[in-house]
């Protein structure tokens, strides 16, 4: 955060370095003396967890490249070579594959936390936008990484996703040919995906630095959504935030290790252990779990171009969020109606995720045939995903803009340190939310 630095070089070397490259000062001001709101709860530990995920993916990824062969003829075999022959190759690959899923679990929690506590509102719009850019880069990286083992799911996943661009009028076909480097997904496609899969994580790291920079300019939001006003509202980053983040990381690593050691293939697909075959599409092709809600939105729309636009529109909503939410109150803790809609939104996203994993015409309630509407039975997952997708868009485009103008909010505390004292009316609500204040 802005403000003068309190760093005092203690040794002669530190003074010498500080006059030339004040890097120790930067670290001290950013991660030791940096004031953090005193009421941050555990939802605020996911920034640190995400840094850990990125570091883990970079290290395991760079090691995997030492043993992997980016070629349509050898990629599959080289991945099996890593799994069977390379010393601890199985561990490093499972860490990398499951690490991607852990990364997305953490980023979704991080995003929903921002959504609930209004962390995207002024003056944090740029901070939020940078986060959205990181999320986009993560999705591109994850998709291209999934193609590299060159199994059946890799191949046909690449076919489906690159064909999305074919939906664009006029230029669609040229773009897909350009992306493929041929008339189909083939060796050139694999090689360029490999190149970009290596590049993008470093771009993510770059945008993360901008993200943290923006964070340190505007300061962290907090569960009350009220800006810190005095020293009583903040505590130093070290030891308070470092210890808390460290504990949360340890718990998160237990979950990570549980997947890596006990169910390393639970989040993958068995079909990807079959070498890619362009002539046969797996009977049930689905993306990785973290793309399922968007996949469900794609399938919910019966028109190809509109489906693709809806899917990209779902992500575009996130970018527009700071200007769609009209409420002056940041934290949904003081927005009773918005809070209910937030939880319905989370449920809608989960429903979309489930729908994305099913076949479109599967029945939601078994053995019940109702009537056909828009070429699908009403009792089908495609209709369930239509309802959920409608809510997804309504949440961003109707509910948040209108609710900000009409909602009767609860009284917002004057400051972080004394919420209950200034507003007796808000005291009961605060009392139930109190345990996290102790953290």
């Amino acid at each position, binding site marked *: 955060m802005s403000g003068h630095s309190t760093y005092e070089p203690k040794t002669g070397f530190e003074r010498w370095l500080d006059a030339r490259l004040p890097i120790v000062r930067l670290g001290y001001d950013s991660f030791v003396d940096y004031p953090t709101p005193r009421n941050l709860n555990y939802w605020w530990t996911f920034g640190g967890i995400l840094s850990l995920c990125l570091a883990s993916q970079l290290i395991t990824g760079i090691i995997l490249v030492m043993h992997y062969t980016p070629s349509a003829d050898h990629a599959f075999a080289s991945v099996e070579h890593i799994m069977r022959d390379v010393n601890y190759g199985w561990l490093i690959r499972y860490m990398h594959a499951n690490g991607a899923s852990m990364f997305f679990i953490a980023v979704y929690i991080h995003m929903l936390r921002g959504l609930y506590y209004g962390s995207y509102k002024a003056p944090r719009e740029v901070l939020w936008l940078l986060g959205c850019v990181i999320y986009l880069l993560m999705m591109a990286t994850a998709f291209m990484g999934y193609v590299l083992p060159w199994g059946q799911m890799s191949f046909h996943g690449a076919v489906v996703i690159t064909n999305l661009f074919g939906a664009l009028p006029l230029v669609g076909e040229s773009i897909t040919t350009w992306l493929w480097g041929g008339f189909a997904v083939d060796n050139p496609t694999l090689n360029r995906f490999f190149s970009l899969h290596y590049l993008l994580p470093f771009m993510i790291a770059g945008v993360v630095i901008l993200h943290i920079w923006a964070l340190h300019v505007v300061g962290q939001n907090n569960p009350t959504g009220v800006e810190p006003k005095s020293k009583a509202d903040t505590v130093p980053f070290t030891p308070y935030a470092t210890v808390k983040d460290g504990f949360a990381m340890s718990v998160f690593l237990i979950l990570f290790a549980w997947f890596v050691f006990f169910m390393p293939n639970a989040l993958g697909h068995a079909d990807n252990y079959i070498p890619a075959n*362009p*002539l046969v599409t797996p009977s049930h092709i689905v993306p990785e779990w973290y793309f399922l809600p968007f996949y469900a939105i794609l399938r919910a729309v019966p028109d*190809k171009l509109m489906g693709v636009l809806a899917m990209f529109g779902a992500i575009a909503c996130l970018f527009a969020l700071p200007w769609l939410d009209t409420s002056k109150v940041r934290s949904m803790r003081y927005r009773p109606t918005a809070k209910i809609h937030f939880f319905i939104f989370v449920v809608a996203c989960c429903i979309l995720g489930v729908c994305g994993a099913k076949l479109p015409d599967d029945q939601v309630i078994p053995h019940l045939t109702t009537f056909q509407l828009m070429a699908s039975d009403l009792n089908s997952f495609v209709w369930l995903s239509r309802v959920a997708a409608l809510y997804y868009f309504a949440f961003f485009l109707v509910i948040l803009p209108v609710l900000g103008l009409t909602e009767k909010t609860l009284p917002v505390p004057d400051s972080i340190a004394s919420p209950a004292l200034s507003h007796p009316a808000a005291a009961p609500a605060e009392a139930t939310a109190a345990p996290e204040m102790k953290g």
Partner: protein
Amino acid sequence: MAVAAGGAAAIAWPFIDQMNPSADTRALASIEFDVTKVPEGQQVVVKWRGKPLFVRNRTKAEIAKAVADDGASMKDPEKDSARVKPGKSQWLIVGGNCTHLGCVPTFGGGEYGGWFCPCHGSVYDTSGRIRKGPAPKNLVVPEYAFLSDTKVKIG
């Protein structure tokens, strides 16, 4: 200013165009195929330009069904006769990728007896025309010619 923009475009183009198909990929020869290899009522999947191609030997009933549906309401209306060569209506040659997102539809699936795409549920009839589901177009009929009664050249 204009010179600088022109220079920037001139240097940018090679970096963009390098991703387009290379000369050896573009030079992929056309293929010849002996259609007698396909028994009646069956199809053979041939790999052409890295993608599957369906060569289907249609039964009389399948042809009749396709012709009878010429007038039905369709997303991408096309007569069956326009999708085969004159006098060779038993041979249907179409690209084996769903026009939605490129999956390979399964032979004989779906209620129209043509193909069913497992990815997003598109249904094609015995002429390879899209009848149901999200795909916008009929299965593509490639450029091909009969060299003799039994031999076709595709591409």
